[in-house]
C-alpha cells in the first residue's frame, strides 16, 4: 500500500516537462485512433438496438421507420420475460451461494494454518481451468441418481460450483492483503472468529466480494449448457437457452425479434455494472488503520 503511494508520488514529482509536452501532441492522434476502434466495436451494438425497434429488420444497418415496440411485444408474448426471470433466479441464487462459500473458504485459506495448504490451493487453481463439458456428463448422472433433475435450485448449485474455485482464489488474495493486526486487535477485544469475519474482514474486502459476485453472476447469466442439460422443464428455461430456442424455432430468423430479445437479456447485466461501478470505484484501502 505504502509502496504504491511512493511510486505514484515519485512519478508525479519527477515527470519532466518534456514528456508532458510530447504527450500533449500525441494525445489527439491517439484519441482519434481510439474513437475509431471504439466505433468499430459499437457497430454491432448499434445494429442490435436499431433492429430491435424495427419489425422488418434484416442483417443490414438501417434506421427503423417508424420506431416500433412490436418486436418487444412479440418476444415477451413468446416467453422472453419468463426466461429472463428464470435467468435472474439461476444467476442470483448461484451468486449468493458461490460468494458466501468462497468468502468463508478464502478466509480460512488466507488465515488458518492448514496442512497441505499449498496442494489444496494448486488443486483449486486447477479446477478453475476445468471445462464444463468435461464435468457435465458425470454431473448429469449424479443428478439422475439424486433425482435432482429439472430443478432450478439444484441447477443453480452447479452454476455456483463452476464459479467457486476462481472466487476462492480471488477472495483469498483480497483477504491476504488485509493487515493481520486488525483481526488480532478484534480478537484481543474478545471477538470470535465468526465475529471477526463479519465485522472486520468482510467490510474491508467489500470491493473484492463485489468483483467475485459480479463475475459469478455474469457467468451464470450467460450459462447455456448447464441449464440446457440439467433442467428440461420448459417453464424453467433461462434467457440464454431461450434465445437459442427462439432463433431455431421459427424456421426463418426474425432479426428484429431476436435483437429485441437480446436487448432485454442484456439489460439486467448492464444495470448490475452501473450499480456496482459506483461501489468499485470507491476502491480498496485500509487508510488510517495502521501506521506506515
Amino acid at each position, binding site marked *: 500500500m505504502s509502496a504504491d503511494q511512493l511510486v505514484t508520488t515519485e512519478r508525479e514529482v519527477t515527470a519532466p516537462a518534456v514528456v508532458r509536452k510530447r504527450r500533449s501532441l500525441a494525445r489527439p492522434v491517439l484519441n482519434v485512433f481510439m474513437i475509431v476502434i471504439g466505433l468499430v466495436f459499437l457497430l454491432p451494438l448499434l445494429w442490435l438496438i436499431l433492429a430491435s425497434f424495427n419489425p422488418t429488420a434484416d442483417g443490414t444497418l438501417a434506421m427503423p421507420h417508424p420506431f416500433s415496440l412490436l418486436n418487444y411485444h412479440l418476444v415477451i408474448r413468446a416467453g422472453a420475460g419468463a426466461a429472463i426471470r428464470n435467468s435472474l433466479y439461476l444467476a442470483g441464487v448461484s451468486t449468493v451461494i458461490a460468494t458466501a462459500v468462497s468468502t468463508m473458504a478464502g478466509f480460512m485459506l488466507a488465515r488458518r494454518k492448514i496442512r497441505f495448504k499449498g496442494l489444496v490451493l494448486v488443486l483449486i487453481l486447477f479446477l478453475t481451468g476445468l471445462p464444463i463439458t468435461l464435468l457435465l456428463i458425470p454431473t448429469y448422472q449424479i443428478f439422475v441418481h439424486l433425482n435432482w433433475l429439472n430443478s432450478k435450485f439444484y441447477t443453480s448449485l452447479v452454476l455456483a460450483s463452476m464459479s467457486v474455485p476462481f472466487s476462492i482464489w480471488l477472495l483469498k488474495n483480497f483477504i491476504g492483503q488485509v*493487515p493481520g*493486526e*486488525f483481526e*488480532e*486487535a*478484534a*480478537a*484481543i*477485544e*474478545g*471477538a*470470535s472468529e465468526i*465475529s471477526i469475519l463479519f*465485522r*472486520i474482514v468482510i*467490510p*474491508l474486502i467489500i470491493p473484492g466480494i463485489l468483483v467475485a459476485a459480479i463475475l459469478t453472476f455474469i457467468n451464470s447469466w450467460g450459462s447455456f449448457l448447464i441449464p440446457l442439460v440439467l433442467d428440461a422443464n420448459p417453464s424453467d428455461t433461462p434467457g440464454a437457452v431461450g434465445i437459442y430456442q427462439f432463433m431455431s424455432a421459427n424456421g426463418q430468423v426474425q432479426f428484429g425479434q431476436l435483437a429485441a430479445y437480446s436487448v432485454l437479456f442484456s439489460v439486467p447485466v448492464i444495470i448490475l455494472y452501473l450499480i456496482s461501478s459506483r461501489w468499485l470505484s470507491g476502491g480498496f*484501502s*485500509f*487508510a*488510517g*488503520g*495502521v*501506521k*506506515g
Partner: protein
Amino acid sequence: MAKIVLRRVTKSFGQKVAVDDLNLEVEDGEFVIVVGPSGCGKTTTLRMIAGFETPNMGTLHIGGTLMNHVPPKDRNLAMVFQNYALFPHMSVERNLSFGLRVRHASKKEINTQVHEIAEMLGIRPLLDRKPAQLSGGERQRVALGRALLRKPQAFLLDEPLSNLDAALRTQMRFELKRIHAQFPVTTVYVTHDQVEAMTMADRIVLMNDGELQQVAPPETLYAEPVNVFAAGFIGSPKINLVSARIDHSSGGSALRCLATAIPLTTEIADQLRSAQSETVTIGIRPEDILPQSPMDDTPGRAVVSGTVEVIEPLGAETHIAVRVGDDILTCRTPPRSGLEMGSTINLSFDIAQATIFDGTSGLRLC
C-alpha cells in the same frame, strides 16, 4: 487483574531467536516497563502474552492459569498495538466501543463509557471521524482509548505514546499513572523513552537481543546495573565507560586509565580479584564527575585533566565533553560556567561511586 508469569519462554522465527529463555514475573497490579534496543524482542514478548504467538518452549501463566494454548479472545487482555490497528471502516466511536459491543454490553453502558474515555483522552470532537481522518497522535489516543475502555486482566501497551508531542506525552503519562493508581491493573508497557521508563515503572525489564538483561526498580537499575549494556542503556547523557587495567603491584592496587593511576581501597581491590582478565570497564555517571578548580584538593578523588571538546548548554545545566587521552568524558556542569571550547579543565571523580565491570564478560564486579 492477574499475575503474569513467563517461565523459560523461547520464541524463534526460523533461524532468528526473537526471545531467548525468558523468565519474568509481573505481579498482580504491577506496572512493568519493557525497554531495549530496536529488534530485541519486546513486541514479540507482548504478542506471546497476548496469544498471537505461541512460545516454542516454556510456559505462560496469567492469573495462575496456563495460557500457552488459550486463544487471545479468551485471555481477557487489552492491547495497544505499536501501529495502532484501528479498524479503518469504523468511526472512532465504533472503534472505541468494539470490545463492549462484541460482549453485548447495553447501549447505555457503551455510551457512557465511550464518552467518559473520549473526554479523558481529549478525543471527544473526533468521535464521528474515520481513522483515516485523524492525525498520528489522535489515532494513538483512540488506540489507547479502545484498550482502556474495558477492565481487563492486564494491559499490554506497545509504545502507546510514541507519536505524541512532548506536552501531550507528559499529559498522557500523567493520565496513565492516575488510571493505574485508581485501577491497579497489571500492566506491561513497552517503550523507547527513558523518561517514561524511569517515571512510570514499578520495575523496568531490560532486554537485549532476545535476552533478559535485568529486572529492577528504576533507581536500582540506574545505580546498580548488572552489566555494561544495562549501564549504557539507561541514563542520559550516557554513562562514561572507560577501560582500565588492574595493577595489583607493590604497596596496594590501582587502576591504570585516563593517563593516570587511581589507587583503590582494599575493599574494592578484593572485589576486583574475581575479574577474568587484567582489564575492566569503569562506568562513571556524568553527574559524578565534577569540574575541579586547581586550588582545592579533595582527598580520595581522582583528578584527571583534559580539553573541552563539546559544550551543550541545556538551560538548567550544561553538558560538556572533555577529551582525556583517548577517552571522552561527559559531565554535567552548572550553567554559565564560562568554559570555552579547547580550554584545559581538571575533572575529579570518586572511584567508589563508579561501577566497575569485567572487561571480558561485561558483568558488574563492584
